[in-house]
Each structure stands twice: as C-alpha cells, then as structure tokens.
C-alpha cells in the first residue's frame, strides 16, 4: 500500500487490501470503542497477575490475591459440613428408632445413608439394594436377622459371620450331606418346597416332614417360620436367598452356603451406621 486509496463513492480511505476488485473501507472505530478495547487488554494483564494464570514447568503462577479453586471447594465443603452439623449431632445422640420417627431427621439420615450405601454396600446388595442370589434384597419384608431399625443397625455394625468381630451375628447350618441320606435330602427338599406351595409330588412330602421334624426344627422352628435370633430363614415364604425350587433347596441342605457380611461399625463409625440403618429401614421392607 504505497498510496492512499480513497473510495470514490463514500470518500473514505481503504485499507489497501483488494479482493477481485473489492476493497475494504477503513472507517475508523469510535474512540470509546478503542479505549474500551485497550482497557480490556489491561484488565486481562491485571487479571493474570491477580489470579493464577501463567503456566510454568511444573505448576503455574499463583496470583497475588492468593485465590485457589481448591481452597474454594474446601471452604464450600466446610460450610456444607457446618450446615449439616446440627443434624449430625442429633443423629449421634438419638437412637435409630427416634431418628426414623422424626421427619426432618429421617430425611437427613436417609440422604446421608443413601450416599454411604452407594459407596459401601452396592457392591453386594446392588445399587437399588435389590440384592441378588446369595445377597439379600433389602427392599422386601423378609429379614433373616430382624428388620426393625435397631436390628438393622446391629447387623451393619457387627456384620454376619465376620470372624474378627466378637459380637458378629453368628449361626452355621450344618452340611446335611454328611448327616442324612441323599434320599432324605430329596424328601425334605420336597417338603420344604411344599410349604410355599411349590410341589406336585405328594409322596415325598410326608417322609420329608419327618426328616424336617428330626433335623431342622431346632433352628427353623416347628412351623418352619425360621428364627431371627439365629438368622434361620423362614422357609414358608416366597423369598429364597439361594434360589427357590427343590434343586436349589437340596443343594443348600447338602452343603449350605454361608454368606458373610463385614462389620462396618469400626470402619464407618456409629453415626454413619445409624444413617445407613435408617436408610435401609426406609426402603420399604422395614418392620
């Protein structure tokens, strides 16, 4: 652009750039616009001095205001903890039944317990506490060791068959494969299945009932309704931890599976366990 070029129509000078005969007018910007532009540049420079900005080899400049997004998160978490403070204190002091009876406290405990459940319990019980074979469904109304809030709290605190906790819930069904004959196992399985209306072959039921009376009533009770003190399941209902049907029952009689649940009391602390107990109790199956 050696010479100024003036556009004939508008009388405005052009930038000197030309594309296929089209030239670009060089209308100057208003002063306030340009000033604003410079202000934004200075602002940006000031910003990079005030706040963390420039990347260095292993970190970045810290900024003279000492701002840190990590600190911000920390402060927000502290504030959130403080806001929860009075609820946590109440959860500490009250029993699980009292917590469950108090609307506001229950709501808090269910939320907190639900979060803890997602971290600690879903691995076995499933994300919806729906369980699976060998892992109890916590939504239903069948409880091996009792389903009121206190009993649930006890189970979570000390676990089931968890050897290192002296207070753990403990019971062990013997392996009847070594005690009774295979025929008796078939008979008793048929009888047990018949209790929940699953059997067709009536010839097996009577001898099965005899085998049951001789071997099983001590734990499962005369009416086979189970015993929550011993964690002996109710055999008359529709819920089967290790599967329903004669074959599954026979397998369990022959060589029972003994599920283990860890004791969470030491790991999570009493407050968290209480929240978990209230949450599990709230799922709809609690007693």
């Amino acid at each position: 652009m050696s010479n100024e070029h003036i556009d004939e129509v508008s009388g405005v000078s052009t930038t000197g750039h030309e594309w296929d005969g089209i030239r670009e007018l060089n209308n100057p910007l208003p002063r306030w616009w340009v000033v604003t532009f410079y202000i934004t540049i200075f602002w940006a420079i000031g910003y990079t001095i005030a706040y963390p900005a420039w990347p260095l080899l292993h970190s970045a400049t810290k900024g003279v205001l000492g701002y840190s997004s990590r600190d911000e998160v920390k402060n927000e978490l502290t504030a959130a903890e403080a806001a929860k403070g009075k609820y946590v204190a109440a959860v500490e002091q009250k029993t699980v039944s009292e917590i469950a009876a108090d609307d506001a406290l229950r709501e808090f405990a269910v939320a907190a317990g639900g979060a803890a459940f997602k971290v600690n319990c879903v691995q076995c019980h499933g994300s919806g506490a729906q369980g699976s074979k060998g892992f109890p469904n916590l939504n239903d109304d069948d409880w091996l060791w009792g389903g009121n809030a206190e009993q649930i709290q006890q189970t979570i605190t000390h676990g089931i068959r968890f050897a290192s906790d002296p207070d753990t819930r403990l019971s062990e069904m013997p392996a009847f494969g070594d005690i009774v004959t295979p025929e008796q196992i078939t008979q008793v399985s048929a009888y047990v299945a018949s209790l929940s209306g699953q059997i067709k072959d009536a010839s097996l039921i009577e001898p099965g009932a005899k085998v049951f009376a001789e071997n099983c009533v001590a734990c499962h009770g005369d009416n086979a309704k189970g015993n929550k003190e011993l964690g002996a399941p109710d055999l008359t209902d529709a819920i089967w931890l290790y599967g329903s049907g004669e074959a599954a029952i026979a397998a369990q009689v022959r060589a029972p599976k003994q599920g283990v649940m860890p004791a969470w009391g030491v790991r999570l602390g009493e407050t968290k366990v209480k929240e978990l107990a209230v949450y599990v109790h709230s799922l709809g199956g609690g007693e």
Partner: protein
Amino acid sequence: MHVLDNTRVERLEAEAVNSAKVRQPMYAARKKIFPKRASGSFRRFKWLVMAITLGIYYLTPWLRWDRGAFAPDQAVLLDLANRRFYFFFIEIWPQEFYYVAGLLVMAGVGLFLITSTVGRAWCGYTCPQTVWVDLFLVVERAIEGDRNARMKLDAGPWTARKLVLRVSKHAIWLVIGAATGGAWIFYFADAPTLVGELFTGTAAPVAYVTVAVLTATTYTFGGLMREQVCTYMCPWPRIQAAMLDESSLTVTYNDWRGEPRSRHAKKVQAAGQSVGDCVDCNACVAVCPMGIDIRDGQQLECITCALCIDACDGVMDKLGRERGLISYATLSDYNANMMLATAGGSGSVKPSLVRTADGLFSDKVSHFHIRKIFRPRTYVYMGVWSLIGLGLLYSLLTRDRLEVNVLHDRNPQFVTLSDGSIRNGYTVKLLNMIPEPRTIVVTMQGLPRADMSVVGDDIPAGRSFAIPVEPDRLKVLKVFVRQPAGQIQGTARTFTFRVEDKASFESDEYTATFNAPEIAR
C-alpha cells in the same frame, strides 16, 4: 567545492509503512451532538409515548392484585425464589414458561409487522434507549439551555457556572439512573417491603448490586453514549433494514420537491433559475438526536423519531409551503415522484415538473394512502401474530391447575414380598397450582385387587386415598402399589393414577406401568 556525486547510488523503491501519506487514524473522535428542541405533532406524540412507557415501567410494581391469603398481592411479580411468575390474574409455574416464550415470539412478529408498515417505529418511539435519552435530554435542556446555549457552554472555558451546571446535570442523571435501577428490582420482590429494606440497608446484596449496575448502565447509555449505542452497539438497525421494502413508511426527505435547495431563493429565482422548497436552513439537522442529515437519504443511523418532520413542517408553515418536505413516505411513492421530477430519471430535479404554473402540486404526484401498507406481507404477519395470540389465550383459558406426574422406581423395578405378592414403588407428584389449599383424592384404576400405600403416612392401604396439598405447592408422595401373587398378569401391565379435587371437579390422570418378574407364582 565538493559536489555530491550520487550517480553511483541506487535509489530504492521503499517507503515507510506509516508515512504521513498513508497513515490513517486508529479511531474517530466522537462529534458532539446538541439536539435542538423540536415542537410539533410528532414531538407531542413522543411526549405521550414517553409518559406511557415510563409510567408503565415505574408504576407497575406498585399495582396490587388480591389473590387471597396464600399468594402475594403484587400485580406483576417475578418470584424467583419460589419460581412463580404472577401477572394480574395469571400465575405461571416454571414448566409453563412457554407462555412467556409465546409472548416473545409475538413481540418478534409484532416488531416485523410494525417495521414492515411504519419502519423503525420501535427505535424512534418506544425503545428504552430512545425514551431514556429523550428524558436525559429534557434534563440537559432544562439546566444548560437549548442547542446554542449548550454549544456555547461546551466550547467555553471551565467557569464556576459551567461547573455548577454540569455537576447538577450529571447528579440528576444519576438520580434518574438510580430510580430506573431501583424500579427494576421491585418486579422481583414485594415492592413496598423492598423499598423499606433498600433505604434501611437491610435488602439483599444482590438488590444493591442490581441497582448499582442498572444505575451505571442507564447513566452511561442514556446520558453519555446516547446515539453511539444505536449506531455501534445495537444489532437491530442492521436487522431492521431487512424488514423494510418499497411499501414501508419511513422518514424521507422528498428531494423531488426540495431540490435544488437554496439559501438565497429570492436571488436565485431573480436570476431566472428554479428553486425547490428546501431553503437549506438545517433545522432538520439541528433537531436530530442522531446528528445526521436526513437529506442524505436513508441511513443506518436514522431511528425515524420524526423530529426532523416537525422541524421542517414548522419552516414550511413560515414559508407558506405545503407541509411534508420531510415526511413519512414509502419508497415506491418517492421513486414515482422522483421519476416525475427528473423526467424519467434523466438529469436533475426540476420543480416545474411537479408543480403547476400556479404553484400547486401536479396531479401526477403520488401521495401516500393507508391501503398501500396493507399488503400480503403485513397480512401474513398479522395472521401469524393473531394465531399465536389466540393459541396462547386458548391454552391459558383451558390449562390444568391440578396435575399429577408419576415416576416409576427404576431400581428395583419390582420387589417380591414374603407372601409372594409383587410391590412396585412410584414417586407421585401432585401439583396444586392454585393459591388455595386443596384435598386431592388419588385413585388407582386397573390392576385388579392391587392396593396402594403411602410411605411415611398413616393412610391405610387401599385403592383410593385423600391427601391435603398446600396452596400453590407440589406434594411428592412415595407410593407403593402391591398386587397379590395370584393376580399378576405378565411382566408389564398399565394402570392409571387418577387425581381429583372433589370441590372443583378438576382432575388429571397418569398412566403408569406395573412390573412383575417373568414367572409370577
């Protein structure tokens, strides 16, 4: 004497890139505009529009509207904390925001309609920027005087008088700015309460920040930047140009009767040359708030405030000429008259071609007629605008004030209970959208022998229950539906939650799915 021998020095073709010849300014200093006070019918109309629009803006939050004991009594209120929008007899919940979207679409189409008929009327009369600049100019004129006095004051040295005038002008501008920002926040909270809190320093920080920001923008845009906002910041002038066509009315300088303009009409006429109506008095330029000359033709900067029409009409009255040298005219009329005045576009304007010997307009001059702005395009805009309006109105008059939404538990989808029955969990949301407490009866239809129970409530299990819902609130229930073992049919059955207000007979239904395991016993 030593003589420089430069024959062996080669002269290079080089030039500094920023030599004085090619150097161009990085910016243009703003040329100050001192609009003169205009008077006339358009000015009177603008005063009226200004009074109405400012009145609506400042007074609306103070209007009361009785909605009973359970809702605020402010006629127009955007209750952000509770997510409710009140507009006289209408209450809108967040999920009904499409009414606002519909109104915005109507505003858009309405703007198209207005622009395609009467040009940039929005810019010239009702745009807040125009109205507030007008208001700020009233203050400026009252303190510093009209155009000439202001120009003199501006050019003069800084005296005590100038200081006093300037300080008081800016102080009043700031007060107007603060009042504008203050009025804005009254739309978001109970105005009488908030005004008390504002002055006792107990209002929320966001209220003060909002007032401060809007004070600053009002003062800056209305007092300091004025026409710069329209020319450089607003996208609308660029868009509106696309809305205009040859049948749109717009403020026009009618060259065909104004040219050739002359400041010394008598002398020129005496010399035997013809003159047009324009006496080049610059009255139109002096009153223009955008500082432009309408005689240069249509320009992006022109907001069509029509003050130049008032100014020019005053001059024409004095000269004993017809009003309308500058007038609202359509491009088609203008073009027709230009063709007439220039004898088909060849050569310059000749007054003799548009006027008869006795000085009157020739019959061939085109004049505006109202029917010209009614054309297919405006009918389409009107039709679309009315359709949306009627649709919104219909929807508003027939909308539900009682609703039920149901979410089926996804995990687990169903639970087998010890007696073999199947239970499904649902989150049932009852929406009582009127500011009155109501008792809602929830009934289930379908799913034989199944019953419902509400978690955390003492309502006995059954196929129907009544539950109170607070005024203007959503009630969330956790409902368990349980069907006995023998009744289960298939893995997924639909049934209906029906909610009803026995008092008003309003009802709503939601069809939900009941899931069961594949082999139900």
